[in-house]
């Protein structure tokens, strides 16, 4: 629902949504100029949780910086670590054993499911429904328990190493992952009935926040934001990395350009991730998880390297400029949410506050990842 706005400065008022507000899920601040319930203009203000990860990357040696990546996005940490280790491996010319790469893919995909589940719950909670969050957390908890038994931590994993992994997965993990797949499919049917089919939910999201392809391209949006607007772009397919070409999976694309399309993309992605995990568990080769002669001190050759990966929140890029030293000359982290979020200012003009906040939920923002 939007209406043409005649700007009458004397009759508008400013509402600060955030930095502490239940809808922003973190310390994002949105300055909204409102005409009644309609937004005349909005400005997102970021930087409340800036921690200088890029600068830290320049000051610390490569292994020391490894644990920072999982602090960027605490919901889908594995994907970010994956991007970083792939980039450094490319720069230093380290060969990764096949088993390690398969396990990485399993972990990243499970983590993607966990992240999407949490987003699903939080999104429905933004719309005022509480119980789906709890159901989603139950399934997510299962994944976290599995991850904890292997990596030792629940959210901020420090599991990937340059050249391989911190430790190997055991039979218990494989059995748990196999049990998880049918369980998750059953839950998806439940969510379909409880949330996706619900008339109130559909009425709120159908036609909410139309994002054209042009707007998505202009701001460099990726993940479900772009795929919900009909842009068939997924780094896993478009710029294949790791062992993804060996798996058979689809990229869900919806053409409605509204919040419901973005929701549908993410829900369909959970199923695709389950397919990847299933195939990876079947094909999992034996072998070492670290290369026989992994270098103790990482000193990449001088040069400019870039590696993009598809994380739960979109296309994440690591650009590494090395001068051959122990620390990078420059480390640039391209975070997907940063691009996705900046659509908000332009799109929410003329929307009502509840629709705008539903739209914000559909973007899947994780604020520490924007500010890094």
């Amino acid at each position, binding site marked *: 629902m939007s209406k043409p706005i005649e700007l009458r400065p004397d009759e508008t008022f400013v*509402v600060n949504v955030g930095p502490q*507000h239940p809808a922003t899920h973190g310390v994002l601040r949105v300055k909204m100029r409102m005409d009644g319930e309609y937004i005349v203009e909005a400005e997102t203000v970021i930087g409340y949780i800036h921690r200088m990860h890029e600068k830290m990357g320049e000051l610390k040696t490569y292994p020391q910086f490894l644990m920072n990546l999982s602090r960027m996005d605490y919901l889908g940490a594995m994907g970010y670590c994956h991007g970083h280790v792939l980039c450094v491996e490319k720069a230093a010319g380290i060969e990764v054993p096949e088993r390690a790469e398969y396990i990485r893919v399993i972990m990243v995909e499970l983590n993607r499911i966990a992240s999407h589940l949490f987003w699903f719950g939080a999104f*429905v*909670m933004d719309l*005022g*429904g509480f119980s789906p969050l*709890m159901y989603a957390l139950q399934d997510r908890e299962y994944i976290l328990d599995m991850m904890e038994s292997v990596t030792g931590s629940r959210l901020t994993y420090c599991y990937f190493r340059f050249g391989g992994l911190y430790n190997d997965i055991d039979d218990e993990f494989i059995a748990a992952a196999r049990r998880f797949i049918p369980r998750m499919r059953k839950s998806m049917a439940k969510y379909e009935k409880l949330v996706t089919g619900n008339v*109130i939910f559909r009425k709120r999201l159908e036609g909410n926040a139309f994002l054209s392809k042009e707007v998505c391209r202009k701001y460099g949006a990726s993940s479900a934001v772009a795929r919900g607007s009909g842009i068939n772009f997924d780094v896993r397919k478009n710029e294949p990395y790791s062992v993804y070409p060996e798996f058979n999976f689809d990229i869900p694309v919806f053409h409605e350009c509204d919040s419901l399309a973005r929701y549908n993309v993410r829900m369909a992605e959970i199923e695709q991730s389950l397919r990847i995990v299933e195939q990876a568990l079947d094909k999992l080769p034996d072998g070492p998880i670290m290369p026989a002669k992994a270098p103790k001190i990482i000193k990449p050759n001088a040069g400019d390297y870039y590696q993009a990966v598809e994380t739960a929140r979109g296309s994440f890029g690591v650009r590494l400029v090395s001068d051959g030293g122990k620390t990078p000359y420059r480390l640039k982290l391209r975070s997907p949410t940063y691009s996705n979020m900046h659509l908000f200012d332009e799109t929410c003009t003329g929307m*009502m506050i509840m629709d705008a906040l539903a739209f914000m939920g559909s973007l899947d923002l994780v604020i520490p990842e924007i500010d890094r």
Partner: protein
Amino acid sequence: MSLTLLNVIFAVVVAIAFAALNAAYLVWAERRGAGRIQRRPGPNINGPFGLFQPPLDGLKLMAKQLTIPGGADKILFVAAPVLSMFPAIMSFVTIPFSEMIVAHNMNVGLLMIFAFASSGSMALLFAGWSSRNKYAMMSAVRSVSQAVAYEIPMLITAITIVLMTGTMDLMEIVRQQGPSILHWNIFPLLTNSHNLLMPFSFLIFFTCTLAETNRAPFDLGEAESELVAGFHIEYGSMGFGLFFMAEYANIVIGSCLTTILFLGGWHPPLPFLGFIPGVVWFLLKIYILIATFIWIRWTFPRTTIYGLLNLSWKILIPISLFNLLLTAGLLKVF
């Protein structure tokens, strides 16, 4: 005269006690129910089944300081919570719990309850306006437009009942719904109108009750994910407590009214169950309705303000108007 006055004062005291007790324990029931729906236990530490939780919560609220924001309209700010509780208490006076238990029966009891119910949104407007908070203000405006939109279908449905029973006396309305479930206004097969659309009328009335009491999925006034807490955002201490109690008292009133108008009041569903006292049936019915309120809240997401107004003006009002005309016609025929 003086006896009636005493009667009313006694009734108000009992009503306050009933409302407060209900409010306290409905919060407990809501939390336990929500917990079970979400597969967690809910409050279970204080006392058996967490039953001491509500009095302890009340004690905590009372021990807190009532802060008034700078620039707020002090009189309205303090008056609003009291005002929100007042209509609910007054409405209890005329609710017949059974043939015997009624404080003061009036021949316009239905009208009186609606009159008080519509003053409830005034309290929300005062609270929102006087808080000097933009979220509270938006919430107040929402609440009022919501109340206006939902009183119309509610009243039209009530008029349908008045047409069928020919009275506004709540006791008389209930008496006409005896003795079995087929005489209740929700399935009026054996009464004078034979209107088969009454179950839909019941749904409309129930939806309007949800909206009138600001309950999910129509809790736009509160809307904690957008307006943080809506009209009571600036209230702490017992000011918040009173709003909270008023919400539950309103739910009880809404369920009482739905029971009286549609579910046959204190009548048992089948005549041979008449040995159980009427008040038990009445309380059973209202608590089933309240459980449904809670159940609905923890299942559905919130509607939007325009979705809510669309629902009222495009669906509920036309259908209830049609039902009113149909009932009038059927009454003429039979």
